[in-house]
């Protein structure tokens, strides 16, 4: 299932200042991701995967290099245009869910639509409908602290997808979940987020769900050391 080029990362370098010096965490990264692909970004802590996904998602400027997202060179955009681009095209799923504790699940799911100016009632209704698709419609009026970790992550998925973004980036979405819930979340992502004109990139340590990926990019010391369409990486990563 491939719908053309979704992500194009070209010669991306990222350095962070440390004291009077700087430390390079990404070295000339080059990678293309096709639409319709569920891509895992794996590697040990400090390998640079979070930095890379942040740059791809348009929330961290690279030191040099270019990033194209569905044909738009995102770091050529002005700050405001980049924010607007994220709101329109990118969905985020965070490890700690980052739901607003004082909003109900449906209201949380509706936030990207509300931020885009959709009327609140309509936005919440669309959030509620998506939650039903994610099999948590019964919990739409509950607050996050009334939900289990898996349910909260599904609300976060609903929030990431409610505005129908073309790219969904996820940071360790299964880290806080048991194996069964983790696989269910990944299945849902594939089922609901992925389409021919969309892409999903997931940063994960969770080898229990590696078999669900279309492609696995393994990183080490700021470089992509393996690009495994054949899932050959699986055994290597599981062995670590």
């Amino acid at each position, binding site marked *: 299932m491939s719908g053309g080029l979704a992500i194009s990362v070209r010669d991306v370098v990222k350095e962070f200042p440390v004291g009077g010096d700087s430390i390079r965490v990404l070295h000339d990264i080059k990678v293309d991701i096709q639409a319709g692909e569920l891509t895992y970004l794996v590697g040990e802590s400090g390998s640079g995967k979070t930095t890379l996904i942040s740059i791809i998602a348009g929330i961290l400027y690279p030191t040099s290099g270019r990033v194209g997202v569905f044909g738009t060179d995102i770091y050529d955009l002005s700050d405001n245009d980049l924010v607007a681009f994220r709101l329109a095209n990118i969905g985020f799923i965070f490890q700690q869910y980052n739901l607003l504790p004082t909003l109900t699940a449906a209201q949380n799911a509706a936030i990207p639509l509300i931020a885009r100016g959709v009327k609140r009632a309509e936005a919440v209704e669309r959030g509620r409908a998506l939650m039903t698709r994610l099999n948590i419609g019964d919990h739409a009026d509950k607050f996050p602290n009334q939900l289990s970790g898996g349910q909260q992550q599904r609300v976060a998925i609903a929030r990431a997808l409610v505005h129908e973004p073309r790219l969904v980036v996820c*940071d360790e979405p299964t880290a806080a979940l048991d194996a069964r819930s983790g696989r269910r979340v990944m299945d849902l992502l594939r089922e609901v987020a992925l389409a021919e004109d969309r892409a999903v990139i997931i940063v994960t340590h969770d080898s229990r769900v590696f078999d669900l990926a279309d492609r696995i990019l393994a990183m080490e010391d700021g470089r992509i050391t393996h690009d495994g369409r054949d899932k050959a990486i699986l055994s290597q990563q599981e062995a670590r």
Partner: protein
Amino acid sequence: MNWVAIRMLTGDRVKFIGLIFGVAFSTLLITQQLTIFVNLLFRGGVAVQEVSTANIWVMDPATRTADVIYPMPITALDRVRSVPGVAYASPLLRSNASIRTADGDLEGVTVIGVDDSSLVGIPRRMVEGEPMQLMDPDAVFIDDVGAGKLFAPGDPVVGTTLELNDQRAIIKGIVDSVPTFTAQVTLYTRYSNALNFVPGTRNRLSFVLVRADDVAPEVLARRITERTGLKARTSEQFARDGIDFIIENTGIPINFGITVLLGVIVGVAIVGLTLSLFIRDNIKQFGALKAIGVTNRKIVGMVSAQAWLVVLIGFGLGLAMATLFIGGGAAGSPDFKGFYMPYQIPLITLGLVLAIVGITSRIAIRSVLKTDPASVFR
């Protein structure tokens, strides 16, 4: 997004109540203290404002206020009457005296002697008795607040005989008046009676009360000064002199200023700390919103909406409490008689509260604006 901001704020009950309390307490403190301050200042001019029939007060040039008096010879009255434009001129004596209370103590009182025939100088409203009863021998009127000080509730006041500077005085009526700044018991009597009650000196005239006849009071006051060498002030000017005297010669403005400043500091401290805690607790959520695509401008709008809600509710509550205090609780106390809240005070308080919330939310929002959206992935 303002709706989301309001839900974020109101959902965190403890901090929301803390913020409301901070603003409400500051509002109460500032409004109440400013109101008391302003009304105390007004009492510097109340002795003048009570005499509505005269619009010019003539006095010795050394006299500064209705309470800080250098007496004049009685001949000053005729000199003032001879000035063209004077419709009438009445003598007024203000002096201190002592009365013996029921338990044998001495109480300082202010004796005001008004014109024997016209009674110009007594307050407009009577609580008990008729103005003409002041014509009776040894008659005095007592102010209502003073009567409350001297007599127990329910005790007869009118008809009571007082020992005033060792002389007999009979209370024939109670006048409705606002206490002056000194808050002494005030006894009104005829000028001729007052001369008997108050120990004698050569000069026995405190003021000449003048009504202008077809000429502006300011013009006539200047004319009186030019022709008599006496100090002549319009009622408004002389009331203002009393207020200025308090401002210049007492520590009241500094003390009340300090209290108002404390109100602002307490407000800044409570609101600032609570708002900072609220922002800090929600920094991840704000970071997530920024990552999702909520602009800094919208984030500023969200925090502003939260600040406005806190101001509206906190200021409203604080103002309601201050109004209840001034108009309700305090109204029953003679110490607060005549107190009211000029409309400028809520406006000043609102300005200060806006400054408190504006400064604290500006400081708090800096951390949100500085938050790197990428931090949500760390």
